[in-house]
């Protein structure tokens, strides 16, 4: 018998009702779980740790002397998504990513959405992520974000909400794939009992998306990494290896006559598509940060000439900025003439005086976020914040209101998770990866489920001690 802590009724649990009753799509798993002894499962978790450790040693070694590696904790209870829910999510993400790409094309061309008065000009053009160099550049099929990570949560009302869109260099897909591999290795019998949607084809889909991004027939694709001291190097190396393309660093590439080449043992080879895992600011020291050693001098010029494709495009950050986020539903209506299928979290924009006043009056209930913050840093969670923290944010809001937005405190759904004292509910989110090409928008059924391992914590980021779970999308 497992020591099980039941979820509180204040939030939604993916598996259990607060009475302890099991939701239908978890029935099969719950039966299987009851048949396992805690000792056997504990051994399996140990096996998983050891195996990740070994692979972790292989991949996640950071630059430090000791050769230490950091592992993201893996939980062996999967997050299971019913087929119908996934279909709705998938349709919603397609719509959303389509609108975001249309928005990016628009703001780097005719600015129709600004002219129509839907988004204020200063919100777009004074945004630090807006790249004037992109104005007027025509990209193949008008695709800017080839790869999008959509962060989704489920609130206490049982509804899914999009928390944010990641249109720059979203990471984590390698964990989605490795987690599945691990679960199939540890518990093959579970996959015989459940029709779990397959995710293994992601690298193949990614490669085909990257190839279609180019106007030429048989393009040479590479993955551009900041190097093996980067914390996501494992993922860069993994994806390059899985796709069978070269993993390059900035110094492996050079630009001549506005074409990009890589230096190989058999001479120079032209590069047509760069899946870059480097931020805009570091891509080209001639155009952006002059001190960047990671990029390729002249890359922007070659890009502007249309001689190389970058995935994602330069300047996509303006569309996933927290100050633009509140307008995504409007974008969907404006560009697609459709009603949004996925919920946006209601957002107060502190740059608006009436919103600011509301936020200051309701600081106890709200989450206040820096517009340009990421990774769970620089935010205030009202209900759990100390008076000092709240005062700090009152001061911040007074000096720079436009730098902040506020949202209601969402109660992320939970899922039973192995903890020291048995099994207890822990909060989680979901990041599926959406691939866009001129032909279609594709995604594998699933994504990266991140879980906050501290009891009651809503911060799932791995930099803040979050873990991951395998994500099962059930087939009908």
């Amino acid at each position: 018998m497992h020591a099980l802590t039941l979820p509180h009724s204040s939030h939604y649990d993916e598996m259990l009702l607060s009475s302890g009753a099991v939701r239908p799509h978890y029935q099969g798993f719950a039966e299987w779980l009851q048949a396992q002894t805690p000792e056997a499962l504990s051994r399996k978790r140990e096996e998983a740790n050891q195996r990740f450790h070994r692979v972790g040693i292989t991949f996640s070694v950071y630059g430090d002397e000791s050769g230490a590696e950091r592992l993201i904790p893996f939980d062996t209870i999967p997050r299971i998504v019913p087929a119908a829910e996934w279909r709705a999510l998938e349709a919603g993400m397609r719509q959303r990513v389509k609108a975001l790409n249309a928005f990016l094309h628009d703001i780097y061309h005719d600015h129709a959405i600004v002219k129509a008065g839907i988004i204020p000009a200063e919100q777009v053009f004074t945004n630090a992520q807006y790249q004037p160099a992109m104005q007027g550049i025509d990209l193949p099929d008008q695709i800017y974000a080839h790869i999008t990570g959509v962060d989704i949560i489920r609130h206490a009302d049982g509804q899914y909400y999009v928390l944010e869109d990641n249109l720059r260099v979203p990471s984590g897909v390698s964990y989605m794939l490795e987690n599945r591999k691990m679960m199939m290795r540890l518990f093959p019998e579970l996959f015989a009992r459940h029709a779990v949607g397959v995710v293994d084809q992601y690298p193949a889909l990614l490669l085909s998306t990257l190839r279609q991004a180019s106007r030429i027939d048989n393009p040479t694709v590479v993955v551009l990494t900041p190097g093996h001291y980067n914390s996501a190097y494992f993922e860069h190396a993994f994806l390059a290896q899985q796709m069978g393309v070269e993993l390059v660093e900035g110094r492996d590439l050079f630009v001549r006559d506005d074409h990009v080449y890589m230096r190989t043992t058999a001479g120079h080879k032209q590069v047509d598509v760069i899946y870059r895992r480097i931020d805009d600011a570091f891509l080209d020291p001639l155009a952006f940060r002059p001190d960047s050693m990671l990029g390729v001098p002249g890359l922007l010029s070659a890009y502007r000439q249309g001689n190389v494709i970058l995935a994602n495009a330069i300047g996509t950050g303006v569309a996933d900025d927290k100050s633009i986020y509140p307008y995504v539903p409007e974008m969907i209506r404006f560009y697609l003439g459709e009603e949004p299928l996925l919920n946006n979290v209601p957002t107060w924009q502190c740059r608006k005086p009436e919103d600011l006043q509301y936020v200051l009056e309701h600081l106890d209930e709200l989450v206040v976020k820096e517009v340009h913050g990421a990774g769970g840093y620089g935010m205030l969670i009202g209900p759990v914040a100390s008076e000092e923290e709240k005062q700090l944010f009152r001061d911040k809001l007074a000096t720079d209101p436009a730098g902040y937005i506020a949202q209601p405190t969402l109660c992320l759904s939970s899922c039973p998770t192995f903890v020291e004292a048995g099994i207890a509910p822990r909060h989680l989110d979901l990041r599926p990866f959406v691939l866009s090409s001129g032909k279609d928008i594709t995604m594998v059924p699933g994504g990266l489920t991140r879980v906050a391992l501290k009891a009651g914590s809503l911060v799932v980021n791995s930099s803040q001690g979050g873990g991951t779970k395998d994500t099962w999308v059930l087939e009908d």
Partner: protein
Amino acid sequence: MMLSRTADHLFWMGRYMERAENLARLLEVSHAISLMPRSHNGGAEISAPLALTGRLDDFQSRHDHTEPAQVLHYMAYDLTNPASILSALRSARENAHAVRGKISSDMWMSLNASWLEGRKLAEQGEDFQLFFDWVKERAHLFRGAAYSTMRRSDAFYFLRLGTFLERADNTARLLDVKSHLLPDQQSADSTDYYTWSTLLRGLGAFEAYHETYRDTLNGKRVFDLLLLREDMPRSLRACFDEIRQALAQIQGDNGRPARRLATELNAALEFTAMDEVFDEGMHPFLRRMLGEINRLGESIQRAYLEAA
């Protein structure tokens, strides 16, 4: 075809691992010879590894005397000495990490473990002789893993290139240091016997010598064995032959100057007799060879590895 940087990492991974092994062999030999009872020049013997690796000035700036234990520690365990065995193990592993996707996991595991365990042995202050034996074993293990798990593609050949270029360089240097011991006439002096047998044992060539010559040890034959014999895996000739073969396998036309040079060197040694070497003088000959090895390295660098 592969990225020049990838080839560069593979090449240096091979060089550093080979260097670690050769350093262990060199230190072993110097240490043993310095212990010789009638050694009139034990101090010079033990400082030979320092001179050979260009670390004499640095060592002397840190120490007033040349104590064998200090030299061995500095050359084996000291990470602040870039020419130490442990530094070589670290560099080999760093190069491997940068091309993790291009080598087999057996190779990676072996290199990673060598670095991690080596560091532990250094911290414990492991007995030097045991450490040298361990280093040789790790080098054998790594080469075995490479040989039996790596696909025969450019990656494999760049690794071989690094390995044998380093070995050619190390063999030539080691012989050069001993060339002053060569007598004009055959000598039965027991000091010499001890010197030559130590050298041969250090290079794992003691048995091969007796099998080849079936005669007492003499310096000329030792040099013949380690310079010109194509069937001796550590001889200069064998190294050139391996380099020539590896270069011939690598795709593309970039490396023609390097290939020509390797072929010429191999042919030159093939048709050289020991008497001619002695006519030229052992030291001048070896200096010339070291120059050629250097040229070959530069040529490989320019053709394949360099950021062109």
